[in-house]
């Protein structure tokens, strides 16, 4: 064994992140051996990303940190972030979450990757270009070299961002939520990418709320709750036999271990709520689907199937009447209120008027339909939402809370059908489970139909009674 392998790629000692006197992350200790993988698992708001920022030396100003961070044997005080900046790209790199947002939208893919070779590694322009081209080809991206980021799929953008951050050869990479917002086949791509990186001898610190990824990556696992590591050790054994109560709850909330909820739901009504015949839609030259027939009854739970980009969201929008089909007929049952068809959006942050306090948004709704504010308060209480949250602006509330407020808002309208478009893809497993159990309660109690788009096959399997295939035919 040579010396390099004895020095851990990353060692963190007694690291805390404080805001004024309040500790947001407390006394974190872990060691990542060279060439190893450490997965940091926790729900949103547990302090995972703060920890990553503290290691990078990149905390936003009101926050400060204590403890020590040693990267590749170089030990620095945690608060001394500036000394670690010099190593960015060379000794440690960060692959940000939703990397398609981190790429420069005005630069071609190859130039972005070449920039790292040129600027961080100091290679001359032509050589950097050639190296970038070779790197892109190695990940099957040679066709994408001259494209702009908006022309790439999520998985391709992720590989490009990976190359751009990895190009300078940093042996340690911090990866923030690599599977957030990706569908099942893309998740496999990400996993393959991370495994390939590891095979090259890189050490990975992977931050995620995705239990599937933690299981697939193996290595070490650390579980984080409210800023503390509650359990750490060998990934396989923790996942097999969790010791801490929270880890057990987290694992139980993984869609893979959800019970077959669909079995507990009452049978749907016999008459159709919406009947679609021969529905077709295309946007310009992009043909989405045609000749789709479907019928949804009250109390039914239906998942929409089809690859990403096949028009599932558009189909759902046609069902609820937001979008008109090019051809075909949509017949809705008579006697329904105009607000009987509601939608839950993928990104709850975008579903509320951005500059309006939540209380105002909801009060306007209650006034418009002459409803009872107490009814809303009861709904919020059932979703375990503190009334004080309503005094905030939408962006000041966490995704999980906001999605529950969006759900309460939709339920207030007493809908006949809810179209849930990836309602939990941005939420951690515990919140996912909460949102779904609330949704299904409504299906049960109010005989409401649920039309579901999800990329998570486990969720669809557990929740949906049947599937409508939107794929092109």
């Amino acid at each position, binding site marked *: 064994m040579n010396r390099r392998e004895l020095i851990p790629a990353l060692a963190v000692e007694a690291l805390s992140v404080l805001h004024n006197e309040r500790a947001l992350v407390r006394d974190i200790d872990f060691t990542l051996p060279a060439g190893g993988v450490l997965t940091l698992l926790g729900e949103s708001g547990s302090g995972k990303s703060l920890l990553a920022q503290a290691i990078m030396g990149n905390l936003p100003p009101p926050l400060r940190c204590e403890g020590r961070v040693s990267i590749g044997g170089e030990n620095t005080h945690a608060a001394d972030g500036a000394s670690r900046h010099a190593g960015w790209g060379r000794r440690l790199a960060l692959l940000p979450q939703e990397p398609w947002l981190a790429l420069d939208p005005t630069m071609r893919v190859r130039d972005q990757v070449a920039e790292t070779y040129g600027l961080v590694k100091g290679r001359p322009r032509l050589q950097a270009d050639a190296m970038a081209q070779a790197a892109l080809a190695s990940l099957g991206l040679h066709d994408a070299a001259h494209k702009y980021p908006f022309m790439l799929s999520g998985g391709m953008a992720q590989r490009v961002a990976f190359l751009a951050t990895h190009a300078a050869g940093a042996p340690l990479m911090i990866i923030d939520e690599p599977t957030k917002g990706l569908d099942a086949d893309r998740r496999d791509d990400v996993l393959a990418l991370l495994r390939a990186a590891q095979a090259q001898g890189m050490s990975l610190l992977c931050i995620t709320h995705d239990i599937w990824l933690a299981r697939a990556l193996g290595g070490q696992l650390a579980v984080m709750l409210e800023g503390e590591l509650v359990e750490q050790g060998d990934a396989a054994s923790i996942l097999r036999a969790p010791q801490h109560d929270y880890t057990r709850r987290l694992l139980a909330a993984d869609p893979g271990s959800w019970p077959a909820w669909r079995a507990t739901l009452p049978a749907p009504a016999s008459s159709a709520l919406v009947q679609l015949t021969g529905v077709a839609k295309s946007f310009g030259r992009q043909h989405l689907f045609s000749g789709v027939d479907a019928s949804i009854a009250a109390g039914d739970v239906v998942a929409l199937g089809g690859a990403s980009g096949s028009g599932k969201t558009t189909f759902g929008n046609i069902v609820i009447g937001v979008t008109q089909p090019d051809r075909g007929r949509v017949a809705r049952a008579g006697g329904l209120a105009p607000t009987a068809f509601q*939608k839950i959006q993928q990104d709850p942050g975008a579903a509320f008027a951005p500059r309006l306090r939540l209380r105002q948004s909801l009060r306007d709704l209650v006034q418009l339909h002459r409803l009872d504010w107490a009814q809303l308060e009861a709904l919020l209480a059932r979703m375990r939402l*503190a009334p004080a949250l309503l005094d905030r602006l939408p962006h000041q509330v966490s995704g*999980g809370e906001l999605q529950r407020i969006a759900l309460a808002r939709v339920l207030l309208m007493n809908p006949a059908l809810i179209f849930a478009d990836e309602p939990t893809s941005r939420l951690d497993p515990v919140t996912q489970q909460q949102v779904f159990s609330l949704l299904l309660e409504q299906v049960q109690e109010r005989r409401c139909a649920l039309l579901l788009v999800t990329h998570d096959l486990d969720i669809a399997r557990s929740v949906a009674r049947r599937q409508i295939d939107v794929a092109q035919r």
Partner: protein
Amino acid sequence: MNTHLAPDLMLADAPPRRRLTRAQIAGIILLGLIGLFALLGPWLVGSDPAVQQLDRFLEGPSLAHPLGFDALGRDMLARLAHGARLSLALAALSVLSAALPGALLGLLAAWRGGWPERVLAALADAVLALPALLLVLLLSAFTPGGFWPLYVGISLALWVEYFRVVRAASRILLASAHVEAARLLGFGALYIARRHLLPELLPRLFTLMRFGFAGAVLAMAALGFVGVGLQPPTPELGVMMIELLPYYGEAPWLIGAPVLLLFLTLLGLLLLAPEREAA
């Protein structure tokens, strides 16, 4: 169970919501003083800006007449106050009469789409193809020296900006998830315009209006300078500058006064810029 860590943090991260920056307060005070001068000045000074006392021509500043007399023996402070009132009122009026219809048409175009949008966009492009000053020159050629052609011309040239900005921004907003949600929840067009669109549009409109106001004051001064705008002896800032230019050597304070007033007005408007767009 505490799942509120993240939002608390976000609240802490956001800078405390200060309503106004120091620069903005300075801008408001400056503009307030200029506004007061324009509003009350003519009445406070008391002298008639048109009365000539030829024996006192180019008389230097004194206590009774702080800016002295101009080349025709007219009280300079009285002329400055009347000029400020006329120029600033005309600029404010033309900005408002450009912004309101421009913004409303922009909203309408974004909302309706289809042929109304195409017709309005074509009209806007046609106006844009003509340089703004040329448009005012054309109109002024019919009734030189009049107030109305100046006002109508400047408004006509300016509405296009408001139309284009509002249309572009509204199109994006109208396609957004929160507007879709509001429609599904049964909210009408007026509500969506008031709660979803206006809060996003107003800051941009305000920025445009600040620049539009500065542009209108300058355009009037420039038109007066080339002799197409308001004509002497009307006390208007641009006209005054032309009249007083030849006496620059003997009485620099005379031409300095309208120039300084214009400069301070524009400075006040620029200081109003929100912190974020200060760059």
